[in-house]
């Protein structure tokens, strides 16, 4: 699976590449299977892109297929990331490097703001959901354990009158 190496730019790009490779060029899977994979893995926790790969891998070759596809998909990212982590640790502490780093971090903050807004759009649709998000923000800022907050919100969701 060469797809991992080229899957820049998140879920949309990943799925488009998988579709081009598996459906059109190799005819290993149908477009329906990919839609199915997306539908079923979206509600699961975790990275949807990898989960689509694991799903399709299982359909193609059972547990072995799933493991092989997932590892192949992730391997390039892991190698890149270890190299970058090493490079980051080895950066000299010069003023110029610090200035560039602060600029990049400011850009990360900007990207995260937009990511939050994009993710929030389809989720924060009810007063209850907005209340939960505000409460989670407040509790998180007050150093309450993040895992506890998400678990409590999930349990609250199972008690809510409707989904």
């Amino acid at each position, binding site marked *: 699976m060469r797809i991992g190496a080229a899957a820049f730019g998140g879920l949309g790009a990943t799925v488009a590449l998988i579709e081009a490779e598996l459906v059109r060029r190799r005819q290993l899977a149908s477009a329906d299977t990919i839609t199915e994979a997306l539908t079923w893995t979206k509600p699961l926790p975790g990275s949807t892109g990898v989960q689509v790969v694991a799903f399709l891998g299982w359909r193609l070759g059972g547990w072995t297929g799933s493991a092989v596809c997932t590892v192949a998909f992730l391997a390039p990212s892991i190698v890149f990331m270890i190299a970058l982590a090493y490079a980051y*640790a080895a950066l000299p502490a010069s003023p110029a490097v610090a200035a560039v780093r602060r600029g990049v971090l400011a850009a990360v903050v900007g990207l995260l703001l937009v990511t939050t807004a994009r993710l929030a759009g389809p989720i924060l649709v009810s007063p209850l959901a907005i209340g939960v998000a505000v409460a989670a923000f407040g509790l998180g800022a007050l150093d309450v354990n993040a895992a506890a907050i998400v678990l409590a919100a999930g349990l609250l969701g199972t008690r809510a009158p409707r989904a």
Partner: protein
Amino acid sequence: MIHAELFARFVLVSLLAFGGGQAALPMVERLAVHDTHWITASAFGAAVAFAYLTPGPVLIVATFVGYHVAGVSGALAATLGAFLAPCTLAALVARQAARFTQRPWFRRFGTGAAPAVMGLLGVTTLAIARDAVGTSWAHLGIVALVAGLSAGTRLHPAVLLILGGCLGYLSGSR
């Protein structure tokens, strides 16, 4: 043992990431920066930047955290933890013809947890902003510019990160 702890903590993170890989970012930040002080908020911000620059999922920040805690073996332990459970679930779903994700209680749990993840993403963004950007007007300008470009154009995040770096260099050299 640190490798077991890395593995276990990232399993927890991945299981609470309702809403896709980016939903895991606040969990990773709380875990690696706030709770354990494994890395600084600046280093976490850099890891997020690298995750946007490298191919594949954003949750690959686990690899960065693991590397900084315990070298290459730590990176592999954290990465395995971050992806093992979600991928096993996905394969199970493929096998079970997906009954599991249709169960009402599971759907409702996800619906309840997702807004909480949004709130925590806000906390994480603030934590990086406080540590790395501070109160400099130049950097607040970069934040606003990148947010505007990201929301209003189809520019790739990598382009915006490089732009931020260049502007940061210019503002720092004056």
